[in-house]
């Protein structure tokens, strides 16, 4: 199996005046290409912190992080921005779409920063929106879409640059159960097409979609279990 993520001894410390807070105490693991991983744990255990480091939004206080063979922990701001653009697709709990832009333009945006020309951009973005079932909602602004539709737009945006990795931090947290299931089915479908997916959740029902579940508690890995495939012992 080809390794996509290799994290070793990652520490994240927040200096809060006199106090020091270790959001991540010492975390190491590897994730291979095309895995579907759920990170679980109680609130405040460090899930989002870990996710932000994996997503290159944040840098660890110490430890190394190799993504796709590149040492990300040594990179400067510009290089990280480039990695976020090319290698990573984010899906957030609160969707995080640009309110003033329509669905199409939201999905187009990563391609703008990737330097792709307007015509090509529109074509790719339309395809991405169609692949999440929103071909008839392209010109809608976020406030004209339901929560589930917004999250689909966000997923289309995450997909559009063909990233190595899709990160979803509590993607169903703001959705009702039924819509949440639909989103999870969409992610499962993406995984079956070859995408590597990491989701953060604290719901068992959601986590069960993933084959591998990493549990963290107080900034440490408490458990790391991979379900056997059907047919495997």
């Amino acid at each position, binding site marked *: 199996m080809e390794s996509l993520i290799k994290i070793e001894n990652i520490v994240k410390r927040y200096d809060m005046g006199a106090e020091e807070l270790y959001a991540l105490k010492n975390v190491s693991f590897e994730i291979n290409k095309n895995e579907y991983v759920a990170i679980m744990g109680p609130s405040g255990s460090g899930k989002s912190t870990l996710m932000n480091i994996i997503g290159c*939004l944040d840098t660890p206080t110490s430890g190394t992080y190799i993504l796709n063979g590149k040492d990300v922990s040594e990179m400067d701001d510009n290089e990280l*921005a480039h990695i*976020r653009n090319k290698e990573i697709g*984010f899906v957030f709990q609160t969707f*995080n*779409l640009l309110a003033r832009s329509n669905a199409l333009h939201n999905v187009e945006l990563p391609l703008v*920063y990737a*330097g792709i020309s307007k015509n090509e951009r529109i074509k790719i973005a339309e395809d991405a929106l169609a692949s999440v079932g929103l071909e008839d909602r392209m010109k809608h602004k976020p406030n004209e879409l339901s929560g589930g539709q917004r999250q689909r737009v966000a997923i289309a945006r995450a997909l559009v640059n063909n990233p190595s990795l899709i990160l979803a931090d509590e993607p169903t947290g703001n959705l009702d159960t039924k819509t949440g299931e639909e989103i999870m089915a969409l992610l499962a479908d993406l995984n079956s097409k070859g995408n590597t997916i990491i989701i953060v959740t604290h719901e068992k029902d959601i986590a069960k979609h993933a084959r591998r579940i990493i549990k963290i508690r107080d900034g440490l890995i408490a458990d790391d279990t991979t379900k056997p495939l059907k047919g495997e012992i």
Partner: protein
Amino acid sequence: MNFFLETKENFAISFKAITANKMRSILATLGIVIGIAAVTLMQTAIEGINIAFEKSIAAIGADVLYIQKFEWFGKEDFELYRNRRDITMYHFDYIKRNATTVASMCPTMGSPRTIQYGEYSLQNVFAIGTTNEYQETFGIDMEDGRFFTQKESDAGYPVVCIGTDVKNALFPNSNPIGKSIKVGTYSFKVIGVVEKQGSLLGLFSLDNRVIIPAERFTKIFGTRRSISINLKAEDLNNIEDTREEVRSIMRKARKLQPWVKDDFGINQQEAFRQTYEQLTSLIKIIGLIITSLSLIVGSVGITNIMFVSVKERTKEIGIRKAIGAKRSTILMQFLIESATICLMGGFIGLMISFPLSLIINAFVLPTSMPLWVVILGLFISLLFGVLSGFFPAFNASKMDPVESLRYE
């Protein structure tokens, strides 16, 4: 390629942001609007005043020195002037004998007279007595006929050259050449019409005059007045040398002791120019103060709303960074936004000042807004846009993506 695409996107963003806050953007540009309107209007006005000044000062001649009893813009005590001796033909002849750097020179003396031809008459015409060298000294062109000759001048022939105002008043439908007119009570034969000269600084007409030989003038009107000795320098570039030469000759003619100040004035166009420049530089300084003040006020306003705009869009900045926007992209996004706002202000300023310049042109003085002023105005607004936007944009560019995403 990438930069170009991002810039296009940034323009689209700023357009959206500005139209989403129309009223705020317009209010914020007020200072810039006033500043740009002020600077362009002021320049346009100065342009017009300059043209008018150059046009009317041309009659004085840049290369002519005027030796007269008084300085044109004398700043000293009246006491110093009161007892000055007259300038007379004696001084004229003395200079004529001794000066080496003078191309031509003529005396002028004058008094207002009534001019008459048949039933037509014109009062308060300036009658000037001079010599034939007047024409060369002042570079006079004739509209019709000729100037008087040396022979006519020396012998004091009763011949006269008239200005166009006189011609128009006395000869509305006939040719004046060869006609006999009365200057005061004396008859003169018209031999030429001087080309139209316009007015001096718009104050009095240079065409409301008649020119006769000095020899004749003194004979009929007397010699009891101070004259002006007008000298054309051989070389305009060395006019200061000529001035010094003439000054020392004059002092000799007047027998002044070395410690005594000049008791005559040597005037030249330069004096007008200096006085004029003092006046316009005052206008410029006032204009500059108004402009800078409103631009500074405007700039502070723009900086302020840009800070607000950045703050309001913290989340948006986080989102853009999460999907790959670099620091430089965000910096440019907000710089372009503030530059666009200021450019809009500049445009509005020009839209105010341009019609005003047309009004000035129509009713006050002929002028037009030079293209470079328009470009300057837009450049200044662009510059202020970038300057005012820099700190807010820089702030935005270095926001932490995680914290910005968490901002509600």
